[in-house]
């Protein structure tokens, strides 16, 4: 890791969310830095996904939010919907967990890859198409030109997630929120996607919030690791320290729950 510039791309302070009277987040603090991957770990139901959704203002209807999410000198929570639309998808993008539902089944891949690109960046149809083919090649879809004409159902689950990642990257965002982006993928593809995320983060200075339950994935790409439990961040720190010498008992229990590979037992 080279000395990345310590600029906070996005800061979350005291984020509280309650849905239907139930408190989901009890004051989450996180800082995303440009060119760094921040990993967010925890079990299902710990509020990892809700944190990601809150940043984009995509929380379910009727949820109450308080706290502060600072991005580019503004508080995203107080931003009018019109301005938030300018940020969402263009400056802050998201990759969702389930590629089967995050892509529109009745639109071609080209439509889904170029629509927001043309809206946010104002590029022409032809240029958008070229960029889209380039993006598909970047996420290793075989035959990108051909793939643009096809529909999501014609791809396997792994391919669909790669397309979803291409969609998120289309407008060259500053912040990428990846919610379990590799959970549904094959390990070989996962390795490729993790390298891609790491590469984008290093090359473009992208700030990535990587939400995952897989501590192996976390260990491979994250610079900073935060562990969440019941709507609270219980531990934050550099990857090496959190995964090797966790200070919170919950982090320790997560690490102890991992199966030990036989190869390491015999060593």
């Amino acid at each position, binding site marked *: 890791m080279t000395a990345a510039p310590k600029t906070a791309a996005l800061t979350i302070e005291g984020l509280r969310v309650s849905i239907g009277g139930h408190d989901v987040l009890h004051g989450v603090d996180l800082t995303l830095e440009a060119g760094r991957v921040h990993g967010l770990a925890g079990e*299902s139901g710990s509020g990892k996904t809700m944190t990601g959704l809150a940043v984009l203002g995509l929380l379910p209807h009727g949820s109450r939010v308080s706290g502060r999410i600072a991005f580019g000198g503004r508080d995203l929570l107080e931003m009018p919907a019109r301005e938030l639309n300018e940020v969402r998808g263009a400056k802050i993008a998201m990759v969702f967990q389930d590629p089967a539902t995050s892509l529109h089944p009745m639109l071609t891949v080209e439509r889904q890859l170029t629509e927001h690109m043309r809206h946010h960046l104002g590029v022409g149809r032809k240029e958008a198409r070229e960029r889209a083919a380039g993006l598909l090649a970047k996420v290793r879809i075989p035959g990108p030109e051909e793939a643009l004409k096809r529909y999501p159902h014609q791809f*396997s689950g792994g391919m669909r997630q790669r397309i979803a990642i291409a969609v998120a990257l289309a407008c060259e965002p500053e912040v990428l929120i990846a919610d379990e982006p590799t959970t549904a993928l094959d390990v070989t593809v996962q*390795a490729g996607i993790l390298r891609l995320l790491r590469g984008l983060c290093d090359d473009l200075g992208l700030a990535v919030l990587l939400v995952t339950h897989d501590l192996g994935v976390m*260990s*491979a*790409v994250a610079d900073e690791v935060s562990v969440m439990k019941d709507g609270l961040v219980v531990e934050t720190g550099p990857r090496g320290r959190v995964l090797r010498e966790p200070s919170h008992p919950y982090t320790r229990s997560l690490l102890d729950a991992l199966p030990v590979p036989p190869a390491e037992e015999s060593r």
Partner: protein
Amino acid sequence: MTAPLLSVEDLVVEHRTPGRPVVRAVAGASLHVAAGEVVGLVGESGCGKSTLARAVCGLHGAASGRILVGGRPVTPLGLRRRDPALTGVQMVFQDPYSSLNPRRRVGAQIADGLRTAGDSATSPADLLERVGLPRDFAGRYPHEFSGGQRQRVAIARALAARPSLLIGDEPISALDASAQAQVARLMRDLAVESGAGLLFISHDLSVVRLIADRIAVMYLGKVVETGPTAEVWADPRHPYTRALLAAIPSPDGAGVLPAELPGDVPDPADPPAGCRFHPRCPLVMDVCREKEPDFGPVACWLHAPEPSSAS
């Protein structure tokens, strides 16, 4: 090994779509499952794992090759009533949100399986209990359950038919991480307990390692390596198996990016000549480009059997 419960020999399954080339999803795969044995079938998406499983159930016809369950050939499922001897093959599908009928109570759906097996002594509630759900859930509808619970219901339904062979087609991939290992272990325990064989298909190698006795690695329609799980894990011999295992990130906090397998998965409609893995193989030799290694247990020219293969 005595006569295996399931034997798949040189199975070829083709998908035909009008206006598109024929896709050989399974191109000469061989596999055996003994009674009481758990076999994990792993491979990347699109390698033909699910098609193989569906062919074993009779959901796809075989273009050539044989599938024998308990010595009887599996016939494709048609409109007529299934041969009772073949109801011993039961499948748990990938997505419990679509494999259960949303408009019928789960107890009624489990009772279908009991009727198939001619079992009037067991009640659906007994089966729910076996999969770790409360007995009174039989009166509920699928939407009242979480994903993990629904998959348990699907397992209960499959077990109700007294299967001799249980097939799990990615049964855990639609579940939350915390439910995955639990459901996988449950399937293993229930299958082994009842003396049935289990063919467990998954792309999640770490779960397969936890539950499988033997592992079969598939690449582009062929089984490229089989062996006892611990052996394959400790000493993978096929370069593809090595690449698969090397791609698993380890949670050691070292920040090592997992090894990437270069190249793309070839189009199954137009597989490469010779060994199917040769364009991506780091150890490729001349012979790999010309002749397909059609031997086992490791289908790789580096591990050719001693009397040089004449076939």
